[in-house]
């Protein structure tokens, strides 16, 4: 294959598993351009390894999100305000 046809094919060749892997974060962000997005979907639909990987990758993100805590110490705000009042007063 000539260098020119190889270059021409580069943009159209099928994605490898490694290519698909590189696009995962951009895919979840919805940041892939239309063409890349189509090629990505095509690979995922055909490749059980990547499709299962994507599934568990998304579960990983969900699990991180689920560890989010809402319970800052109840006295946190009062204590912080107290500290700031003292410090700002001292510097006035």
């Amino acid at each position, binding site marked *: 294959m000539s260098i020119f046809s190889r270059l021409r094919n580069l943009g159209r060749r099928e994605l490898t598993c490694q290519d698909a892997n590189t696009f995962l974060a951009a895919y979840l962000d919805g940041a892939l351009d239309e063409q890349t997005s189509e090629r990505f979907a095509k690979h995922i639909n055909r490749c059980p390894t990547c499709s299962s990987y994507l599934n568990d990758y998304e579960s990983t993100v969900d699990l991180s999100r689920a560890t989010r805590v809402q319970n*800052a110490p109840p006295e946190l705000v009062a204590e912080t305000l107290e500290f700031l009042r003292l410090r*700002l007063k001292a510097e006035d």
Partner: protein
Amino acid sequence: MSSRQEQSTSEPPAGFDLSALLSGDHKAFEDMVRGESDRLYNVIRRIVRDDDEARSILQETFLQAFKRRGSFRRESKFTTWLYAIGINLARGAVRKLSRSAVLTAEEFERLQPQFVDGHVTGPVAQWKPDRMLERQELLDQVREAIERLPEDYRIVVTLRDIEEIPTPEVATILGISEGAVRVRVHRARQALKKLLDEYMA
């Protein structure tokens, strides 16, 4: 469930008067402190991994933000700027704390999938869906795994995946490109996934 839990995650309460705050008004400043303390505390605590240290860095962050308010340029949201200050202070402090459980760069690298000729080498674990059901124990495992991530990766997972701050804003907070945020968060997720394989597969 308190109503706080339903609060939008990407847009914290904007219940303060920014112009008043920037001109030095203490009430506007305190309103901002009330609205931002809990979330910022949780972010800082994940970086320094210590409650008392997180508390004192939170206080210092607000103090510095107030003193340096003149340098806020309105090119980003005020909270984006505030988070950048908090994260920088937390990074400075974390060096003093023990990080025995944190993965070394080599250990982290070994958790990334390896490719030869575009194909993944070695077995790829597949998670069992029923493992997702043992919720509390599972979340403890996830927390522990996140704590072991090297600092840069722990920070990006905290901001992007836990706090759900959009990629462009994370990029501004950390002073890196959006592409760099995605690369970093991707590697962090892959390492986390691998750390959880043992439990999930």
